[in-house]
């Protein structure tokens, strides 16, 4: 082997080490959480209320709270995201306005989550007098998820062949009719994929809900949108930093972390499977 090839061998080995490190990081993360959290998972843990100052019992209110706030997030982010994508992709392809919109989307996706929280506190909690509750937190998360749903919906729309649109228009359909009957039905599954990924991210976010509605401890399940709520990511945060018996509740923290990542992974996985099936269908 001459010098050139030796260098190549070592170079590629270095690259292999890089990917190895990445894999190792993921394995360490998953191993730690699964091994220390699995012991806590039980039917009781998932369905019972916390007891004795949250040192015993379960995390049901956190699971329910996360679910409810994610629903509100979806209600805001999904239709508005789809609508924006439809405008960008179907109505006007490229002009000053669309470039402005796209620039705004990219910037919104880079805004720190705590800044969304600040915005939520001023706009929803104070100015709109909704107070700190599921609705305020959900709306804040919805705004944060909007760039994701727009981008995902646009991708899905782009994947619908132009012939579908042209075919409908040639038959005399109006623009909206063409979109409604010939584009959307084929784009929606793809839109769902990206949307689910965005919602998975929203479910795991803590900063936007810190001051817009997440609560330390509620002795009951939220029955309306205008009450505070417990949430899985916030619960993990307080169990590991602010609880008054941190060492004692460490196992509960691990259990909460495990439930949270299982939830996020399940959502991601269903989106990925959906994407895979769509790709297969498109190949046919």
């Amino acid at each position, binding site marked *: 082997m001459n010098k050139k090839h030796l260098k190549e061998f070592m170079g590629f080995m270095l690259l292999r080490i890089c990917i190895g490190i990445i894999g190792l990081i993921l394995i360490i993360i998953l191993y730690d959480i699964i091994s220390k959290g699995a012991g806590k998972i039980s039917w009781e843990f998932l369905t019972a209320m916390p007891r004795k*100052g949250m040192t015993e019992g379960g995390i049901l209110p956190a699971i329910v709270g996360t679910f409810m706030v994610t629903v509100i997030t979806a209600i805001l982010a999904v239709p508005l995201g789809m609508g924006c994508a439809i405008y960008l992709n179907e109505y006007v392809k490229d002009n000053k306005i669309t470039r402005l919109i796209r620039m705004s989307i990219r910037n919104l996706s880079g805004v720190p989550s705590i800044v969304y929280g600040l915005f939520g506190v001023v706009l929803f909690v104070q100015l709109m007098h909704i107070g700190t509750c599921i609705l305020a937190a959900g709306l804040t998360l919805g705004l944060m998820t909007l760039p994701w749903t727009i981008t995902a919906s646009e991708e899905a729309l782009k994947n619908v062949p132009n012939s579908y649109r042209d075919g409908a228009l040639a038959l005399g359909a109006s623009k909206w009719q063409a979109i409604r009957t010939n584009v959307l039905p084929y784009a929606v599954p793809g839109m769902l994929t990206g949307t689910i990924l965005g919602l998975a991210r929203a479910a795991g976010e803590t900063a936007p809900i810190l001051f817009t509605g997440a609560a*330390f401890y*509620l*002795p009951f399940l939220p029955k309306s*949108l*205008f009450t505070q709520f417990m949430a899985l990511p916030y619960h993990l945060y*307080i169990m590991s930093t*602010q609880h008054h018996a*941190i060492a004692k509740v460490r196992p509960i923290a691990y259990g909460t972390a495990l439930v949270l990542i299982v939830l996020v992974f399940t959502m991601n996985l269903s989106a990925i499977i959906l994407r895979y099936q769509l790709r297969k269908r498109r190949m046919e």
Partner: protein
Amino acid sequence: MKKYIRNLALLVSVLSFAVTNVFAQEMIQVKGSDTLINLVQRLSESYMEENPGKFIAVTGGGSGTGIAALINGKCDIANASRLMKDKEIAQAQDGGINPKRIVVAIDGLCVITNLKNRISKLTVDEVGKIFRGEITNWKELGGDDVSITLYGRQSNSGTYEFLKDMVLKGDYSSRMRRMNGNAQIVEAVKQDISGIGYVGVGYVKEEKGLTVLNIASQAGSEYSSPLNLNDVKTGKYPITRPLNQYINGTPKGDARDFILFELSEQGQKIVEEEGFFSLPDEYREFNNKALGI
């Protein structure tokens, strides 16, 4: 597919509107001090057991957070391990809130160090100097040659403010590590031989892993321990404080009921079980006045 989604979305929105028309749940919202949270949570659990149908939500965040919530109209009772400042009272009154104070327990603030530390007593002045960052090594006090590591709370903590006003009379050292709660300080000092921290007496109740320093009010006066019931109640231990709850106006209704429970024999027994000290008579009179009894 699209029709299915549209119908689903409609269903969800209709349901949520239906749900929001149900009453926002009637509950007593208690917020604030981390020193008090353990105690008040236990009190509220006991109260809710005896009064099914009543709900109390207790959350922490520090005395500052609780008082801010009271001022902002976001809670019914603010737990505070310090007194409200004049500025805060004025702000509350500006917003139409009239804060009334109830004392629920007495706390002897403990200065804690690691078991391996040879120092077992300090004067109030020395404590102040240490936390202001003027004394930086244990050897200056007769201990080992080890740099002092300070563990304290953050500015939302009533304990932080109380110590600052009563003992430091100045600002904390900027090198002090700001922990999120009493429990974190306990954990940190247990593991750090150079550490010193301050926590409410309820947090050292069952702790074998650290030293609770004896404190003297001045050089030359007697040292006393915060674990001594008498010393705390008679005020001989120099760093005692009332643990307070602030309410908007004279307590009424469910909140009043809960407060009366806290001050009752049953409630005060829970106070002692949690490691704090029950109320001496002068505070009972103070409370009665606030309650309008």
